[in-house]
């Protein structure tokens, strides 16, 4: 992985930074000795860029990034400030005192203002930078320690040693505050101006242009794929010459410690446990961003030539409505990809009613490349299947789409020939209001071959959706025995390996599917099927209680079940107007997800 770190445009475009710096310097209350606005007269970032060393990358996606860098700067940047200072000490002294107990001199406190010019140069910085980038929330850059090492201050009063020393001391302390508090705010505002739609202008197309320090990472995945990959994250056969970075490098950048923590997090969320592992500097996000959904549908919408609202419906319902559905996408892909003809035939009748076309339409999407599977292994999911069997009386097919790709791969072609219908309940649950939308999918899978999973989404519990999921490469590369929840079957990589040559034949198919996949009856089918599974849902929820429920949980389940039932009946009632309404809802839901910082 590499960062495209472009320093020269930063040098050219300092006007905006200067304005921002000026406003930020004048925003905070100034010491009374400064009687005028502080104006940034000159700002030159110099020709030497800061050196950045990547220490850790905690989160990496198209629309977000979090990492820790070590930065050191020994460049030739300089900054000239102009202001006016009050030379009468009595004036500054009295201006901070309450007037009631002030001696109120007649003229002894009359002011004498002196213009002052300060030049800051020879700036030496060294420190750890935490950078969090998100398309919605812009760039957050925080210095973990005080980065200012040394600085040279020269001013109008250099001939007076007392004043010079005082200025040096004061400005150093002020700059420390600036680096620790103001600069993150400036960068955040700048980035918001660049990324958020209302600020977005044509000139902002080059993203990381005007950020003062220039530590804006160019997301390696935002650009063209450095290596052509298929939907399973496998590099295409002929792609070797194009390889810029081996995908293994991407995986290597995941910290094992973080993976462990994330695994703990998903574990705690799979149950109703309220425990949340403490993760510093972490943003818990609810679901994939709206922009992400748009991107996800980009492949399908143009050729479908459908109105954008419809594609949005698609995205909210089928593709990324919840974390379990997102999981199903990833799990779908290998099966369809590896067995194109079979899959299209066998699963066509059901799949069409599913509106789960989006994953199909994304062959070669590069984000599969970097997903991490935090799901339970089939092997260690044994106990899970036991608990699932408790509830399986009314809900035998309660497995969600999150049945891992490895499972899919393991079951082999026979599973696809079996047309037993599996109901898949998934509740699209935004984190704050756990009654947003209900969508149900059916899938043709060999029921017996599937692990019965007591998926927590069935209970409608608000969860933190995960849109990034397992990658098969991970298992292949991962010799580490770090305890984590990824479920990679040992035989899977080889299986994928042997499927790879067939990939090119498969390419045109998904497009055809997506065309057929979204007729109106499909939606009707879907809602009716949801009705069917609703009872199952409730019963399964209660059945699950028997194993691990408290009274509170039970009550909550009840509430949720009735809530969902109400929702579904509502939806059924307005089936005619269902599409537009859903589209709107999807649009509303498409706003930036709330983030929780632990």
């Amino acid at each position, binding site marked *: 992985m590499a960062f495209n770190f472009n320093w020269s445009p930063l040098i050219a475009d300092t006007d905006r930074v200067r304005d921002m710096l000026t406003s930020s310097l004048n925003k905070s209350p100034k010491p009374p000795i400064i009687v005028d606005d502080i104006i940034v007269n000159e700002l030159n970032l110099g020709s030497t860029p800061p050196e950045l060393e990547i220490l850790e990358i905690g989160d990496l996606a198209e629309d977000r990034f979090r990492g820790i860098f070590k930065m050191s700067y020994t460049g030739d940047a300089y900054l000239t400030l102009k202001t006016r200072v009050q030379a009468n*000490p*009595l004036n500054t*002294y009295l201006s901070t005192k309450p007037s009631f107990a002030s001696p109120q*001199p007649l*003229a002894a406190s*009359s002011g004498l203002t002196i213009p002052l010019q300060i030049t800051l140069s020879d700036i030496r910085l060294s420190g750890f930078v935490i950078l969090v980038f998100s398309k919605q929330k812009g760039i957050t850059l925080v210095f973990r320690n005080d980065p200012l090492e040394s600085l040279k201050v020269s001013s109008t009063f250099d001939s007076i040693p007392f004043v010079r020393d005082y200025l040096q001391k004061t400005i150093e302390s002020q700059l420390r505050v600036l680096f620790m508090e103001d600069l993150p705010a400036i960068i955040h505002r700048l980035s918001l101006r660049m990324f958020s739609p209302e600020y977005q202008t044509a000139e902002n197309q080059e993203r990381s242009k005007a950020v003062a320090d220039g530590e804006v990472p160019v997301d390696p995945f935002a650009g063209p794929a450095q290596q052509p990959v298929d939907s399973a994250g496998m590099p295409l056969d002929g792609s070797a010459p194009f390889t810029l970075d081996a995908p293994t490098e991407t995986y290597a950048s995941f910290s094992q410690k973080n993976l462990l923590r994330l695994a703990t997090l998903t574990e705690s969320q799979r149950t109703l446990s309220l425990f949340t592992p403490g993760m510093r500097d972490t943003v818990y996000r609810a679901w994939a961003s709206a922009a992400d959904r748009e991107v996800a549908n980009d492949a399908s919408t143009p050729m479908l030539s459908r109105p954008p609202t419809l594609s949005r419906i698609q995205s909210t319902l089928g593709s990324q409505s919840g974390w379990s559905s997102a999981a199903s996408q990833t799990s779908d892909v290998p099966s369809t990809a590896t067995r194109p003809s079979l899959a299209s035939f066998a699963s066509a009748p059901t799949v069409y009613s599913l509106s789960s076309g989006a994953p199909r339409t994304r062959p070669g999407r590069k984000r599969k490349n970097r997903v991490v599977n935090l799901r339970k292994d089939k092997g260690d999911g044994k106990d899970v299947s036991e608990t699932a069997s408790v509830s399986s009386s009314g809900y035998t097919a309660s497995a969600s789409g999150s049945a891992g790709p490895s499972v899919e791969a393991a079951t082999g072609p026979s599973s696809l020939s079996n047309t037993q219908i599996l109901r898949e309940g998934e509740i699209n649950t935004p984190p704050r209001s756990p009654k947003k939308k209900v969508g149900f999918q059916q899938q043709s899978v060999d029921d017996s071959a599937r692990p019965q999973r007591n998926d927590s989404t069935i209970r409608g519990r608000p969860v933190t959706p995960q849109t990034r999921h397992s990658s098969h490469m991970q298992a292949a590369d991962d010799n580490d025995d770090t305890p984590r929840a990824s479920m990679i079957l040992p035989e899977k990589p080889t299986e994928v390996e042997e499927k790879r040559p067939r990939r090119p034949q498969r390419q045109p198919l998904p497009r055809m599917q997506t065309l057929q996949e979204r007729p109106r009856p499909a939606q009707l089918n879907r809602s009716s099927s949801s009705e069917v599974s609703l009872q199952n849902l409730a019963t399964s929820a209660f059945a699950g209680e028997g194993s691990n429920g408290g009274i509170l949980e039970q009550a909550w389940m009840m509430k949720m079940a009735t809530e969902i039932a109400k929702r579904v009946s509502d939806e059924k009632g307005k089936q005619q107007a269902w599409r537009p309404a859903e589209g709107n809802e999807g649009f509303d839901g498409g706003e930036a997800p709330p983030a929780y910082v632990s």
Partner: protein
Amino acid sequence: MLEFMDYVQTAFLAQSRWNIDNSYASLTTTAHHLLDFHIPQGLRLHVSSLSSPRFATSYTLGSRGVVDGSLSFLYSSAGLSIASTSRSVHLESVVRGYRHLQELQRPDERHWNEIWHAGRRVDRKDALLYGRLYLPTSTLEALYLRRISPTRLLRLNCVSDGALPNGGSVLALLQNDYGKYSTEYLYSTDSALLGLRGLYNFGYDPRVPYHQPSARLPAHPWDHQSGRLSAGAEAYFSPVNKSGGVSCGLRFTTLPTHTGFPYTMTLTVNPLMGNLSSTYAVKAGRNLALCSRFDFNVYSYESDVVVGMELWQRKQASVDVAWASKLVRPGWSKVVEDDVNGVLKAQMDNNGKVGLLWECRIKELLVSLGAAFDLKKRERMLGSVGVEVSYSS
């Protein structure tokens, strides 16, 4: 407009025969009143009462973004007999405008105030206590005034505020007024500021009894018969900060015996900072006063001009009784009828800042309505608007 508590304090000082004008600190009072008047901001309500001649309370409620307020109490050892209700209070005594200086008075003899009873002195020295609590900032202000002797006044100003270093500060001020000259010594606990002020009046010495103002020869060329020339200086020094300040000033003002229009001229100089400030105020008529001030700094060449005026609007005498009032002997209606409708004050400086203030009485309420403009800011010309309403009983 004077707040009620300031009005009561002024009455206390007048009752105890203390001349507040004979001090270097009040050298530029007239210009200060005409140019630096307080413009209200937001809405402010004052409800006050002089419940007994010795005790006054006042409550203030303001809303300037947030609601704030203050409670204040005042105790005076001397009974105050002043018009306290907002219906009867004279607007001239609460609206501070052109300041007419009176002829200097000879300080009282010490024994004049002595009261003996059964061989023991029973008289007490006049004192005033005043406290004010601001909410919600919880700032407490306290004032203690004491007439130690006929020529001496002790003033203690205390502020308690958690935001201040050391939690507050105390200012002690000892004033001596001998008529011919006055001295002040002050000490502030905040950075141990020491101060000294002095004012000397040329010409007439009130302590020499046979010198009658009208029937004497000029002692020297600047001994203006119907005016008074005063010179003063102040010096401050803080041993903690190792900083200080100095200024000196001159004032010439006409006395009531002056036959022409009254005027006041002052010149103050800050030799350390090179600041010169001159004011000229003239009472152009019964209802009009004008004032100007020029500031100049000889080091930075910064200059400043402010002009201001005040206009008194008086009630028209009703037609029915106009003929009768004309026939009345001039000295007969000595009781000053409060015939003022309202006062308009305006000031403008060379930076385009304009202040307007209208103070009047509406039924039983004293209302002051003010606005500040900045003519240089085209888009936001109106800086602030405010109304203050006072009611007292």
